[in-house]
């Protein structure tokens, strides 16, 4: 893909994502040292709303879009379950170590980019943009999966109801579906509601007979 092709694609899908960078709020959870100060200054240069907190709080009280978090052997031992919650804002770790225990922590934090220490101005904007876009995509994917799961459950119920009609009434599959749909239309209910009622009734009936 050429650079120009990349630019054209960006226009269509994600340029809005980059434009938001100026309005986002960032929580910097980092000690007050050179790295911490460089982070804050560069975030301000970019134009983000910056808040700072240290040490890592036991729970997060404020709404933020991104958390920039110092991840060190020391900070690993703090008890902060909220960091791992699915609902926690995306996290950009700042790391000075690259050993397995730190890398494992980054995987747990679900990070998709990191800021290496010593912190330079270069790289932070990219990390913010990628992290925001990835977390947005992950959220959309999750919503999509939830919707699909719901649809699957509905289809399973309708299938069960059809089988009941086929077995007890000797209907063809098409007639069974049409019967369910006609009932649904007459009662002004969705097909899955009728199917659900039929499946429940059939279960009760069988329990009563056995």
């Amino acid at each position: 893909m050429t650079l120009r092709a990349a630019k054209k694609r960006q226009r269509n899908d994600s340029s809005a994502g980059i434009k938001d960078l100026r309005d986002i709020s960032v929580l910097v959870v980092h000690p007050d040292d050179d790295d911490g100060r460089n982070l804050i200054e560069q975030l301000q240069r970019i134009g983000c709303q910056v808040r700072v907190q240290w040490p890592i709080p036991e729970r997060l009280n404020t709404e933020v879009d991104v958390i920039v978090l110092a991840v060190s052997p020391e900070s690993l031992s703090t008890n902060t379950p909220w960091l791992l919650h699915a609902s926690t804002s995306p996290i950009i770790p700042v790391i000075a170590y690259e050993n397995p225990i730190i890398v494992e922590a980054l995987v747990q934090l679900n990070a998709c980019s990191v800021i290496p220490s010593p912190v330079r101005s270069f790289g932070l904007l990219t990390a913010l943009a990628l992290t925001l876009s990835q977390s947005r995509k992950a959220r959309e994917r999750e919503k999509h999966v939830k919707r699909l799961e719901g649809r699957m459950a509905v289809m399973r119920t309708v299938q069960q109801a059809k089988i009941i009609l086929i077995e007890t009434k000797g209907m063809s599959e098409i007639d069974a579906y049409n019967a369910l749909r006609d009932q649904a239309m007459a009662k002004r209910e969705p097909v899955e509601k009728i199917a659900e009622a039929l499946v429940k009734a059939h279960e009760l009936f069988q329990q009563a007979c056995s």
Partner: protein
Amino acid sequence: MVDQAIRIGGLFSDTGVTAAAERSTMRGAQFAIEQINAAGGVGGRPLELVTRNPDSTPALYAMHIESLIREENLRFFFGCYTSAARKAALPIVERYDALLMYPVYYEGFEYSRNIIYTGATPNHNAVPLGNYMLDNFGNRVLMIGSEYVYPYETNRLMSDLLYERGGTKLGEYYLPLKNARPEDFAKLMVKARELKPSFIFSTVVGETMAHLYQAYADAGFDPAVMPIASLTTSETDIKQMGVHLGAGHISAATYFQSVDTAINRQCIAQYRALFGQEQVTDRCWEAAYFQVHLLAKAILSAGSTNVDDVLQAMRGLEFEAPQGRVRVDAHNHHTYLFSRIGRANAQGQFDILYESQNALKPDPYAIAPRLNDWSSGTGRPL
């Protein structure tokens, strides 16, 4: 020790595609140094410019800076022209903790503690120019640029501005920085005849700029109806390509030679007395000129040539430049500069159509143009 010269590296190409502009930039620095030395130097020490010719080739800027640091023990540098050159120099000046003063407008999205940027960021030139053209000529735009990062990024910003104002981008074309031929530009003029843009937005840089204006003239277009609006075309470029080719076209810059202030008039008179009556000045010349004065002031007030001390003194430093009073932003190392739009006249000078009342805060990380920048009363049409 007191009268020992303060030696400063000058990275200005004398050959290659951007040589003409860089020679002008070097003269700006040399002129400021002569002024400072004539007035007794910096705390009694004269400034001495040690120049190298990087041949408009990014790797050579980096190589020359590194050799000047290691072999000549220099710490202060002026120059670089394209962003590619600056990006190549950046890791070197950071590694050796040197200071580079960069006198060219560029696309932004950079900060280094070891660089002071004295050229325009897009909020000084691209956004005002875009708004001016959309207000006065219409919103159908054909974009033509040289094939490198500055035109890409500038056109991205301009496209955003255009979309937000309901305009149409008729095309975005790039030609090689080196070796783009006159017939390549002629083909784009055929496109322009078909598409009938309200104006052509140009970010063509270097030697091939003359081909664009020549092709435009050959096509017989009228600048009063459909001008070329450029962020890059300066007095020096126009002098090189011929004033008749530039006349009627529009450009945006922090400084034009025609800026009507006592300091600018005096500066130009002195400059011509020293460098020749035929000399013209331009935006990068002026930035190179005042950044030498900024460095001199910073060294004087720091009382040392230690890079850390000089940087400390540089933050927030002000100077009465030919464009007006400028100031180094303490936080992002870019400079508060004026915003101007001019139309080239038959003498190769710019008649100023618009200028900001004050120096505007530099905004190197502006992702999208803010429309209210234009209407917030910071500027006045002339």
